[in-house]
């Protein structure tokens, strides 16, 4: 019997003086994971970019719940995209995309802190 994969959805705010392309951001997060945890660690992350809103400068990433700590540290460690300075802040972490969207909608302040799951 196969076990259901448990995932975590992470909403990220990207701050930059220049527009950041979806693909460049995705690459930057991957590079950060590879630098910090190597290829083996990156393979366990099962990282995927689910949504990217260039207007709001927000992204939603998905990862395996087992490596959430590693992925959060890697996202925070991103300091540049395509040689431009970038600061990333984790807004929220949730178990389902639906609840993440609901929490994002209901939060009043745009950069509410993420609860530690």
């Amino acid at each position, binding site marked *: 019997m196969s076990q259901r994969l448990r995932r975590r959805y992470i909403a990220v705010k990207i*701050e930059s003086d220049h527009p950041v392309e979806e693909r460049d951001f995705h690459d930057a997060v991957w590079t950060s994971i590879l630098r910090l945890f190597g290829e083996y660690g990156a393979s366990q992350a099962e990282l995927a970019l689910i949504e990217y809103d260039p207007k709001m400068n927000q992204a939603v990433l998905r990862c395996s719940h087992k490596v959430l*700590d590693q992925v959060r540290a890697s996202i925070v*460690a991103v*300091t540049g995209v395509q040689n431009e300075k970038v*600061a990333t*802040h*984790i807004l929220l972490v949730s178990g389902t995309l639906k609840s993440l969207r609901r929490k994002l909608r209901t939060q009043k302040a745009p950069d509410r*802190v993420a609860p*530690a799951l």
Partner: protein
Amino acid sequence: MKFYADLHLCPTLERTDEARKLIQKSAELGYDAVGVAFPVGVEQKRIQEIRDICVTSGLDFVTRIDLTPNNPASLLKSLRSLRRQFEVIAVLCHSKTVARQAAKDRRVDLISFPSPDFRKRFFDSAEAALASEATVSLEVDMSPLLRLQGFQRSRLLSFLRRETLIAKKSHVPIVLSSGASTASLLKKPQDYAFLSYLFGLDFSEAMRGFSENSRTIVDRNRKKLSPNHVAPGVYIIRRGEDCHNG
């Protein structure tokens, strides 16, 4: 209500605009208090400028001085002259004798080891035992973790892992601070707590480093610097006329 303090902001004091940006960014990111590191011999005018920026940004301003003495005697001399002027005193230890003296002196609030050279990181169990007795805290700056890459970062992580483990064993409070000189290196306390996973601090321990441990230092020193402080444990609670003997 949670109180978050970043006790180590390093703006270029001559550039008021940059300092303002940094302080405003701290307020945006959810900090309640910031400590700005001043050099020895700073003018009062400069301190007042930074204080005004903090007040307009809605932040509690904490005065801090970073001492980098060459020997224990010069550390003691600086402490004698500066302890009553600043709310937080941090000693950046570049030699073992200075590190030992700083760890056992109750006038020191924070000890920090900024050198990337393993021969200049003196936070061992003996140092931790002294710091624990004198309630001196270990400060960990987070910005080098964002600035460095590759071998240098992995080496720094290895030092920090070892030092935080020793600090936890000896019950030395760990204070996390940004050490940021530019706004792009500033993160929310929670983001830094996620990053501290890399050197073995769990989320709650890291958050304590930004909240309770920092607040304890500031509150303790403000009490001591208050005109109502007489001696440890003795405070003036009310002023009035002399008692008349009946």
